[in-house]
């Protein structure tokens, strides 16, 4: 029985699809215009700057992603304060973070989903659209003044357009950032840089020069040994290089297509000259023994061990791995070592910030549309997730209790409240004891808000990154259900072949003279048909919208 449960798990996606097509037939779309029956509890004059408060006590169900670092507590100040401010209480369906997506699919498929379904990433939405179980929220933006205001003020329309489905609507209320927020880069042993009299590298060519100098001084080490290679090789390294080359993404952010603004069409990312160029770069690093060939296969733990034991000096990093992994590791093995995260090296695409300004957001169950409290619910969502006041409340809590303001009005934690070690030894914790700064309710916003808890070091990194031009999002190319199915059949063989050839080229098992042969192989795996579908969908969307 238990063994079969595992098989159930594997089959979940397939079952979902099947069920999706069944429920689609039973979907009767309600008239999106007439909301007169759905205004119970809603505010008459709700607008930007208004504190939302339901005119009667309301309760909405929400799928709750239960984070083990701050397990759900019913007595959190967040719930009581939320209720007194908005007259709304939330019924939580608590799901362990470890398997949140699976339970979400199950509940939506079984028609048992709560009304609010947060923590959903944009690509995850596709699977649910055709089932009709998810509300096309774009029809109801008029109920959400704060959201509309932010989209307009922060020029987020091109980003929002990428969420649109074939019907021109979108089904996800995304997290919005005023500024892109890029996290990943390389961590470099700065004591080695000092020892060798080297500058912090600015471009990928500088990185090469730096590695070369490191190798000259320490011939017995591979100066660069990378992590994040599970399940796919060099997830972060390949992606950093790809975006620095102006491509949509590679590695763990594998993107089949990249928008070519000059040609006004999509190209196959892994068949572009840029992609070839970045593989040649990596091949050079491997050939000159600057980059550990095991970087593409080893586990994170092994890469950490090499760094800790002085067998490498450079590794992929984000803010947490730097503070939580590398520094403690090195402190134990080599107290003199210093390591820091350098700004993302610049490539041929110039100084860009490749991060997206959208992040995970919320789906709303289409059942909600039938509720007499529908309008009130949308206003509530708009206030808590998109108003400045709501965002500050969700992140910082209650002024005077969990945070205080300095003279400039900037919030800082109250002295007896801790969060990520900002007030070490404080008796209470913002997340654990009060329920604020909770990933379910708090994300996105202005840079001041997003970076509220960042270390000075990370704020500096963000400052450098934010000085760079944000990357413009590609135009939308929403696929129909049939197209999506067809495309997904092409995707796996294409992706497998790209990964395989990528490694062969990098590790020198395949000569770059065979590049054309490689592109021909991609063509034999339906690359052209893939591009035709995507470009067709792009043109169709341009014509219809």
């Amino acid at each position, binding site marked *: 029985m238990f063994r079969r449960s595992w098989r159930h798990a594997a089959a979940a996606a397939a079952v979902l699809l099947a069920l999706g097509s069944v429920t689609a037939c039973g979907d009767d779309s309600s008239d999106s215009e007439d909301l007169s029956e759905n205004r119970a509890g809603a505010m008459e004059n709700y607008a930007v700057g208004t504190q939302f408060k339901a005119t009667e006590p309301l309760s909405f169900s929400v799928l709750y992603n*239960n984070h*083990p670092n701050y397990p759900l507590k019913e007595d959190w100040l967040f719930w009581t304060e939320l209720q007194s401010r908005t007259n709304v209480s939330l019924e939580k369906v608590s799901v362990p973070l470890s398997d949140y997506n699976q339970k979400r699919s199950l509940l939506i498929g079984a028609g048992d989903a709560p009304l609010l379904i947060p923590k959903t990433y944009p690509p995850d939405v596709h699977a649910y659209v055709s089932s009709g179980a998810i509300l096309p929220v774009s029809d109801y933006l008029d109920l959400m003044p704060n959201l509309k205001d932010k989209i307009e003020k922060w020029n987020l329309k091109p980003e929002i357009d990428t969420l649109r489905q074939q019907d021109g609507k979108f089904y996800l209320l995304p997290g919005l950032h005023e500024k892109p927020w890029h996290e990943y880069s390389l961590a470099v042993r700065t004591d080695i840089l000092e020892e060798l009299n080297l500058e912090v590298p600015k471009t990928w060519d500088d990185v090469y020069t730096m590695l070369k100098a490191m190798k000259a001084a320490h011939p017995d080490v591979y100066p660069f040994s990378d992590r994040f290679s599970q399940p796919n090789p060099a997830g972060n390294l390949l992606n950093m290089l790809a975006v620095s080359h102006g491509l949509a993404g590679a590695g763990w952010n594998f993107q089949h297509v990249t928008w070519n603004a000059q040609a006004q069409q999509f190209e196959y990312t892994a068949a572009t000259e840029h992609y070839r160029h970045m593989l040649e770069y990596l091949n050079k690093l491997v050939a000159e023994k600057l980059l550990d060939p095991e970087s593409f296969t080893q586990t994170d733990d092994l890469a950490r061990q090499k760094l800790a034991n002085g067998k490498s000096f450079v590794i992929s990093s984000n803010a947490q791995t730097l503070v939580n992994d590398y520094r403690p590791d090195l402190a134990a093995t080599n107290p003199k070592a210093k390591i820091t995260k350098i700004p993302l090296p610049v490539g041929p695409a110039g100084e860009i910030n490749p991060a997206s300004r959208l992040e995970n957001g919320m789906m709303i169950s289409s059942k909600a549309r039938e509720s007499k409290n529908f309008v009130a619910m949308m206003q509530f969502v708009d206030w808590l997730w998109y108003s400045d006041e709501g965002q500050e409340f969700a992140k910082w809590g209650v002024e005077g209790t969990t945070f205080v303001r300095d003279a400039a009005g900037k919030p800082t934690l109250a002295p007896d409240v801790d969060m990520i070690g900002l007030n070490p030894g404080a008796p209470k914790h913002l997340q654990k004891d009060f329920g604020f700064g909770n990933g379910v309710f708090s994300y996105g916003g202005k840079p001041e808000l997003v970076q509220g808890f960042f*270390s000075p070091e990370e704020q500096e990194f963000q400052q450098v990154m934010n000085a760079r031009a944000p990357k413009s999002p590609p135009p939308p190319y929403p696929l129909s259900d049939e197209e999506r199915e067809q495309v997904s059949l092409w995707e796996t063989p294409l992706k497998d072949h790209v990964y395989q050839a990528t490694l062969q080229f990098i590790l020198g098992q395949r000569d770059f003279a065979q590049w054309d042969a490689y592109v021909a192989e991609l063509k034999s795996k339906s690359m052209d048909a893939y591009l035709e579908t995507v470009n067709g969908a792009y043109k169709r969307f341009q014509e219809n919208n």
Partner: protein
Amino acid sequence: MVTVDATERPTGSAPRPRRRGIQETRGYRVFQVVNGIILTLVVVVTLYPFVNIVARSLSDEAYIIAGQVNLVPRGFTLDTYQFLMSDPLFWTNYRNTVFYTVTATVISIVMTTCYAYVLSKKQLKGRSALVGIAVFTMFFTGGLIPNYVLVTSLGLKNSVWAIALPNAINVFNLLVMKAFFESLPTELEEAAAVDGLNTYGILLRIVLPLSKAIVATMVLFYAVAFWNSWFAAFLYMDRQELWPVTVYLRNLIAGATGAENVGSITEANEVQAEATLKAVTIVLTTLPILLVYPFVQRYFVRGIMLGAVKG
């Protein structure tokens, strides 16, 4: 392992007495030594990972990352144990696991025994159909969502029944048990019937007392399965205070390793050193079931053999 029987050791210079039974040829002694060496190796190979895990669970994270922990803990620390055990939710969930395991195992044993005993009766009409129904579920399943809808609409969600009832009968266990019951001599039951026992009396007073071995084996099978299971609880339990400890620990590890942390810089001293955490998790979840093994082990081998001889 090679064991030498003290009573058979030759005393003084007296000629070695000839053993009765199998003659201990030279070849046999060589075999014994080789056998002992091989089995010792097997023991080492199976025991090593476990000792290593225990050592890791007691070691400082830095030594694990440096790859220096082998059989002996380095930088001895109980921090991770303390962290885990100071969380009241851990104990709530642990109690749940014990409760779910005991309840579900009892139900499973009763149901499996009843079904298997009925199926072992050759004279039963429609017996092959009943076997067919059971075996059918080994190969075909309703799927995840229909199962979920069924359990939910029966109102079993958020209760122990959601875990115990849908998994009450494991078909493999059922067939093993059926084979065991078939191997019992029918004459015994006929004699009992002649002496005036009804069907239930025969089952309870004749068959079951003779089936301790198989029942013990089944208890072990079911208990281990329920103890380790997390999926059913994950599906049907919507409140964290109802989770078993497996879900709790699974979530904890995901929180320590997962990309969900992105953006929140967790304090270095608080971040649960993931390598240690995994080790502690394994120790804490396997320990109780490990302690049960020695007590049922003697039934275990006999039980599964008895069932297996006759298919």
